[in-house]
């Protein structure tokens, strides 16, 4: 149950803090990082998103960036996503087709196939509700009181596959996108935290949660600095508990109201 009144004025909303923790896959340079994350926290509803560009496509980083910017620019609903997708696809093509035309045969062929990415959009509404929409296996974790209140759309590490649903940068049939697009909703409270994670990080955190002796727990992420995250990722990769993949974690904290936190 929400601790907030049903429809509070925007200036009565608690402060929301967002940090993006990102580490490229090992052995790759920073400019080869193909995840994307963004947050819009200045006005309500607060909107955030993460996306994971598919390695086996070209211009995937640009596609992931267009998706997170696009999805946080409007309501977080499947209808909005399906309606806006052609606009994002046109923007990708406008930027990339000319560049691809002057490139070798393999870049042309890959650009023709288009880029692919998974996407998770998240919205914190002033009425105490949150909404999420997604395609593929980026994961939302809702944290409360030092534990996990829920995860979506993947619940266990075994549920990850090598073939998640993907959003294409070239037009495909609307039905394919509609079938792949999922949505959920819930209620938030002051003090809650939300994590938006790309697949490798999500699988690692969920696996850690299942192991009682694991050195890492999802709730740890609430206090991680980028340095902490880098260290945890490096350790987990070397121990084989985290796949070597671009690793992105967006941490959203709903702080206590300013009056209460002034002394903290």
């Amino acid at each position, binding site marked *: 149950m929400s601790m907030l009144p049903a429809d509070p004025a925007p200036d009565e909303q608690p402060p929301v803090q967002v940090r993006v923790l990102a580490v490229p896959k090992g052995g790759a340079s920073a400019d080869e990082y193909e995840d994307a994350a963004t947050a819009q926290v200045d006005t309500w509803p607060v909107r955030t998103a993460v996306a994971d560009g598919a390695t086996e496509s070209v211009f995937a980083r640009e596609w992931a960036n267009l998706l997170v910017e696009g999805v946080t620019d409007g309501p977080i609903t499947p209808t909005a996503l399906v309606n806006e997708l052609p606009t994002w696809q046109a923007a990708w093509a406008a930027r990339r087709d000319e560049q691809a035309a002057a490139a070798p045969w393999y870049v042309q062929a890959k650009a023709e196939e288009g880029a692919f990415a998974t996407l998770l959009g998240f919205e914190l509404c002033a009425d105490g509700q949150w909404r999420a929409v997604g395609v593929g296996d980026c994961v939302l974790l809702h944290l409360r009181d030092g534990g996990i209140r829920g995860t979506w759309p993947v619940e266990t590490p075994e549920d990850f596959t090598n073939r998640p649903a993907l959003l294409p940068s070239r037009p495909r049939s609307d039905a394919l996108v509609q079938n792949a697009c999922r949505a959920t909703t819930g209620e938030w409270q002051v003090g809650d935290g939300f994590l938006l994670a790309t697949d490798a990080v999500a699988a690692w955190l969920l696996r850690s949660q299942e192991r009682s002796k*694991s050195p890492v727990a999802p709730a740890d992420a609430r206090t991680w600095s980028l340095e902490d995250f880098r260290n945890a990722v490096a*350790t987990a990769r070397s121990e084989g508990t985290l796949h070597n993949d671009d690793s992105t974690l967006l941490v959203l904290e709903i702080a206590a109201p300013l009056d209460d936190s002034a002394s903290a």
Partner: protein
Amino acid sequence: MPLPCRLLSLLFLEPRMPYSAEISRQQPTAILFLLDQSASMQEPFGGAEQTGDAAPSRARVLADTVNDLLQNLVLRCAKEEGVRDYFHVGVIGYGQRVQQLIQPTEEYDPGTGLVPISHLADRPQRMEQRVKEVDDGDGGTTETRVKRPIWFDPRAKNGTPMCQALDLAAQSVRDWIDQHPHSFPPIVVNVTDGEATDGDPLRYAQELRSFATDDGEVLLFNVHLSESEETPVELPSSPSELPSDDEYAEVLFQMSSRLPFSMRSAAEQEGYSVTLDTRGFVFNADPVSLVTFLEIGTRPSNLR
């Protein structure tokens, strides 16, 4: 992390399975094709005339299939900035001669006959244009012209010196493994339509498969192209699934490696039922089963 926690986490590490090495530019894998170029490859696939097909020769179908597969391998590695060397690739033809069909240029010759795939991507023998149907986004299709790289053309002459080809392959992978001891091991795919004419290939196959990286032994898969109308035997787990009167089929079965985990998963996704004993082998392959198997057998795992 406090020391006790770290020790505990080490206790929970699982021993690494073979054939699970990450494939990256720092740690590529190798794919080597052995292609039968004997005189009998001039014939069409079994049953092609009866079904009224235009009946291209088996050599033509094989050259087209392998050119397409090399193109797909390049595309899997292609990024906007260039082709990433996840694979080193070689093609050995055996018929009138036993020879490497893909020659590295002078400035880059690793000495193994296995060429980094970026090198292959930039040096096809020629480019052909072809018309391809693509999804138009409205539930229909539209035609578009695409460029198609050709690395080699069909050949068919003389006998089937498979033992020499396996021996040359063994030299290639041995030298390559010396340079890449931690990689996913080389995958060798032998495509043939007949019996070896230069000895017992099982001995050479066993020698080839005895080479190993830290991640496992060399994988040897065999595809036997159909001369008859018999239904293909795809991915058998036991010799009892093969034609009972065909000793040669059993030799090829014994020559073939078991499919590692990642390829068993790929096979299951293609609708095959597999076991731990499933071999990377197709007997009496038609063009469709040839393409399907090559797709499964050249997908070792995700690229990083």
